[in-house]
């Protein structure tokens, strides 16, 4: 898997490069917005499978990385991008999700400390999946509670909804909650009925539908 990594802090860039290489990825590391765009769009035959991008990058030290990621996805729809951020900004998650169907991720930088999970997230995004930070989801759920849009779910269904919205697969949800996959499937069917979201064969489409519901 070919990964373009954009991170300006040397320590983090170095650590992430090592981690990804240990897991068999080929890494192109850049440290600013313009070279990120070049690495994503002008790579020729060596086109990356996924980009891992820090929101804040030189030269402006504002949301340069996010802007570059959005721009890259505008020019090449569906280009897998996982954005790392020092803080959860629902607006940014929203903008990423709005760029199209899946192959996006938005995670807090802290999550890289759990290497296995982090690399798994990178792989899921590269495969076209959606990965959202638990904090993004919990904020969406808090808002949904206050608005009364997700009332009527059992506590277990809520847990499943939370993990599903983060982009986990049925197997991963089952593993996390120590229940069987068929139980997960049953819970999901019940949630989709209660929230009036149409069933979908494709896992990713289902996640996107749930996220769209929570973001409305």
């Amino acid at each position, binding site marked *: 898997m070919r990964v373009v990594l954009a991170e300006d802090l040397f320590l983090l860039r170095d650590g992430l490069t090592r981690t990804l290489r240990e897991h068999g990825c080929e890494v192109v590391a850049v440290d600013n917005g313009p070279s990120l765009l070049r690495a994503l769009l002008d790579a020729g035959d060596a086109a990356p499978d996924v980009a891992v991008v820090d*929101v*804040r990058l030189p030269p*402006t030290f*504002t*949301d340069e990385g996010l*802007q570059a990621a*959005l721009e890259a996805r505008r020019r090449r729809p569906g280009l897998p991008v996982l954005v790392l951020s*020092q*803080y959860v*900004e*629902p*607006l*940014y998650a*929203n903008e990423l999700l709005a760029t199209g169907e899946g192959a996006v991720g938005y995670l807090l930088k*802290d999550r890289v*400390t*759990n290497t296995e999970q982090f690399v798994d997230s990178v792989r899921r995004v590269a495969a076209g999946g959606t990965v959202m930070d638990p904090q993004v989801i919990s*904020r969406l759920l808090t*808002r949904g509670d*206050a*608005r009364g849009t997700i009332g009527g779910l059992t506590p277990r269904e809520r847990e499943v909804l939370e993990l599903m919205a983060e982009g986990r697969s049925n197997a991963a949800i089952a593993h996390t909650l120590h229940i069987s996959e068929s139980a997960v499937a049953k819970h999901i069917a019940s949630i989709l009925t209660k929230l009036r979201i149409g069933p979908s064969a494709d896992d990713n489409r289902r996640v996107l539908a749930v996220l769209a519901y929570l973001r409305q």
Partner: protein
Amino acid sequence: MPDEPRAALSRACVAVGRCQLASLHALAASAVGALVPLALLLVPVGIGLRLLPPAARALRALSDRSRARAARWTGVRIDPPAPLPADRTAPARRQAGAILADDGFWRDLAWAWLEPVTGGLLVAVPLALVEYGAFGALVQPFVWRALGDGNWYAFVPVRSTATVLAALLLGLALAAAGLLVAPAVLRLHARTGRVLLAPARSTRLNRRIEHLTDTRGRAHDTLAAELRRLERDLHDGAQARLVALGMTLDRATRALETDPEAARELLQDVRRTSERALQDLRDLVHGIHPPVLADRGLGDAVRSLAFDSFLDVHVDARLPARLPAPVESAAYFAVAEAMTNAAKHSGAREVRIALTHGDGLLRVVVADDGRGGADPAGGTGLAGVRQRLDTFDGTLALHSPPGGPTTVTLEIPCALSSPKTSSC
């Protein structure tokens, strides 16, 4: 659009009416203005001392009305002078002395004597045009025969039907010209009046110095309090967690040989503590300066607030460029406070936020559809916001009648700085 000319016509007619009022007001000013010298002349007799304070007060009432009208009719704001010395229990001699020493009183007097000449003549221009025009167009056609051969209308000798028609057209043109210039004349009148109606430069400067000293002191206090809070939060939060982290790591190192299982648990504990330390730091940073505000500016930062709110928030941000960072920050926290109030107290379902910039002024309006009745004095939130805005000469107006809706309007004078670089 047929409405627009009609609206313009009615505005012009209103302006003419106001010119008429202003000219009568000028007459009143000259009458009251004559009272004061009379009182001064009568001072040697003694009665003048008693006459002066009421005359000065009447004069002030008149000039105050003029200031209020300037603001209401034309939007020209004229700062009021300091209130007249009004210790009515003091002896008449001292009262009169205090008034004679008051700068505002002499400026009022000068205004009362000049207003009939300058202001009165100015507002007479559209009045004369309209009235003479009306005479030419509406009255003369019926009475010109009675006026005889030597009758002229402006430069038209009115002797035949043709010349009457010419005079009629001229009359219409004059009336139209009067209507046309009336609003501008009214504005000019307000501006010329301001020269004397506004407090003297020294008074204004004194006031400004007082205001600056006051707000600077409070800004220092706020800053010091903020720094203390930061120090405390760092000390009790992230710093304490890092110390705990070090201690747990130490225990884990020691347990590594003897009890690897315990060491594993301790290390997991370390991870959790480090996550919490990071969260503490994030919260702290967000409280100082929300990153989205630094990255994207006020419009998107408010959109982010809106996104997190459980109310239906509609944001209409029309800011063509970035604002100075301190203004962005003050406005952001003010909007956050207004939204918190709307969510907590008003029972609103919907909030509309409009951000605009014009004439060197940032204007933010936060309106909800709640039950209103918010007390501007109650609660420390809005008072704190007001204090913060004060440092920028900003203002906060709360309009919240019982039954709602509530509207919070803030205005901060500021220039737009760097042109926006991001795409939003």
